[in-house]
């Protein structure tokens, strides 16, 4: 009995040791399914790499006739890159019950690309679904009839729409960016071809998610483009297509949807671009003279840069974002110059709960920033980053565009409801509201010229008469 009593603990101890050995010796992970990159079967090929470098296009004339209306909105955000119309045209302070008159409307290929207006003409980049082609179209501002189109074949699949960028137009040139990063320059009056760059093939640009929305700009006869591939930015002579200067891209910033905006500070003119993503990216000021980097700010790293930087006075720049990253909604940079060197420093950084903008560019007007937050509310922000007012959850505008003219904000929601709001820091004052479109995703940037407001949804564009006469 004593023997049995003694052997039981020993036996238990032996069994325990053996069990522990087997447990520790076994591969505890053998039944786990590791979650590793590559399980989705993504091919290694580069998107757009199968496109030809140079694509032969064609100009086709039609019977549209330009008007002699003087209004201009020659690029994204208008003449001064600020989303404000400064024309001295009497605009209606309120609308008739049925809303502003629809002067004309046209069908478009799927997309969000807004219009530019110059010399009685309306310019858009469209997608021709039947011919599988990007189509740069010149329409009459009078009736929307087509004057000419330059199209080139490129297969573009639906990816939340197709064409997105607003062309830049001067009296001589038009430069447009297609959804798959084809940059084309044509004669703005005749549509005759000047040159084309395929940024994917020639500069190793990676097409941004949902296709590029970068709107080109033309200054002094040069197109300013940010390929953000082998080069970060470049200036191209519009007449010859020769590259005047290139800015290196040593940190490998990728292309964003944001567009370049010019600014002058300390006697220097430069182009501001938000490039890259949340890992490698930031803001850069590139000399308009030779493409050298005058200043850089790397703390504004966001995955999706869409809004254009907003110039605030002589020395500040306001940046906004908000798609998926709620902690980086907006920041204000102030530029200073020390011993000939420009330095950018942030004055505040807010999450999207204070302010952010997913896809439309805010407007600096009368000492305040106006824009739509990701929660859909129109917000007035002072220059210290404090919210002066928000339109409340009863007045939301989704991801729709907005512009200011004569102290009033024209603001669209996602589905064609146009609202007129007082552009004042005193509070949200709604003046009028009308349904002007029945379509889906009325997100295309607005253009205002000669008392006309041009807006679009996914499949169509309308020209509204907003003058007071």
């Amino acid at each position: 009995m004593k023997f049995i009593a003694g052997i039981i603990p020993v036996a238990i101890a032996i069994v325990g040791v053996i069990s522990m050995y087997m447990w520790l010796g076994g591969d505890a992970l053998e039944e786990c399914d590791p979650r590793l990159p590559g399980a989705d079967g993504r091919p290694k090929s580069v998107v757009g790499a199968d496109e030809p470098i140079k694509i032969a296009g064609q100009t086709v004339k039609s019977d549209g006739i330009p008007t002699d209306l003087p209004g201009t909105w020659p690029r994204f955000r208008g003449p001064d890159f600020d989303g404000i119309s400064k024309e001295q045209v009497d605009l209606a302070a309120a609308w008739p019950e049925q809303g502003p008159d629809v002067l004309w409307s046209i069908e478009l290929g799927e997309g969000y690309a807004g219009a530019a207006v110059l010399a009685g003409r309306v310019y858009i980049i469209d997608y021709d679904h039947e011919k599988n082609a990007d189509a740069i179209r010149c329409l009459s501002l009078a009736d929307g009839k087509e004057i000419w189109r330059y199209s080139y074949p490129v297969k573009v699949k639906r990816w939340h729409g197709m064409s997105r960028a607003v062309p830049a137009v001067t009296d001589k040139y038009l430069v447009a960016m297609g959804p798959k990063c084809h940059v084309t320059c044509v004669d703005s009056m005749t549509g005759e071809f000047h040159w084309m760059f395929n940024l994917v093939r020639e500069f190793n640009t990676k097409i941004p998610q949902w296709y590029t929305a970068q709107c080109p700009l033309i200054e002094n006869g040069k197109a300013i483009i940010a390929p953000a591939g082998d080069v970060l930015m470049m200036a191209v002579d519009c007449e010859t297509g020769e590259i005047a200067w290139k800015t290196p891209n040593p940190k490998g910033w990728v292309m964003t949807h944001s567009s370049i905006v010019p600014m002058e500070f300390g006697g220097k003119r430069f182009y501001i671009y938000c490039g890259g993503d949340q890992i490698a990216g930031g803001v850069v000021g590139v000399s308009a003279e030779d493409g050298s980097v005058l200043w850089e700010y790397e703390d504004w790293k966001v995955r999706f840069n869409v809004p254009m930087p907003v110039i605030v006075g002589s020395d500040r720049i306001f940046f906004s974002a908000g798609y998926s990253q709620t902690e980086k909604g907006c920041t204000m940079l102030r530029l200073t110059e020390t011993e000939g060197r420009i330095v950018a420093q942030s004055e505040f950084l807010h999450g999207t709960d204070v302010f952010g903008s997913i896809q439309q560019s805010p407007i600096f007007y009368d000492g305040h920033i106006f824009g739509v937050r990701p929660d859909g509310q129109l917000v007035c922000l002072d220059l210290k980053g404090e919210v002066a007012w928000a339109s409340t959850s009863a007045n939301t505008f989704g991801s729709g565009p907005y512009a200011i003219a004569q102290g009033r904000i024209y603001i669209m929601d996602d589905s064609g409801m146009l609202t007129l709001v007082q552009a004042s820091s005193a509070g949200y004052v709604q003046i009028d509201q009308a349904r002007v479109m029945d379509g889906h995703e009325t997100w295309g940037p607005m253009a205002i010229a000669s008392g006309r407001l041009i807006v679009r949804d996914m499949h169509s564009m309308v020209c509204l008469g907003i003058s007071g006469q």
Partner: protein
Amino acid sequence: MAEKNENVNRRQLLKKSCFGGCLVGLGGLAGFLSGRSRAGDTLWQIDPYKCIACGNCETHCVLENSAVKCVQVYELCGYCDYCPGFHEPTALALDTGAENELCPTGAIKRKFVSEPYFQYDIDEALCIACGKCVKGCAAFGNGSLFLQVRHDRCLNCNECSIAAACPSGAFTRVPSDKPYLLKKVDNA
């Protein structure tokens, strides 16, 4: 005529008892199932337009693995490379690495379809109803991912502890012959 022996021995008694018990059990099961599926009766379901993806569905179900699961309406999905319901907002790369996925259990399977589209499927066995994907999809996507009570798992006890804990009143009773509340394209 000889009188039949009516005596029942112990073996027969046991046999008949078992048989009777089985009949009662089958009857009860049939009644239970018919009660669950009878038109006119109601079941618990989540209104996807009221759900705020708070996470209570994961923690308040009486089942060890919640009866609530994420569902995908393919008609609404954008099939994007960057999916706010699949990727972490700060994902280092748009791939299937665990560090880049929002889902803590890897219940969303991402599959390349053709350039530029990716398909996202739910593995219900892995889904714990935390709602992280639903929140991301609703905030920045098309809202094609949302939560539903799966009636092949729900006990339908009529004392739903998730419904009691739902902060947005999204739990509602629906007819048992229409047990799911799916989003529609027109409402997207």
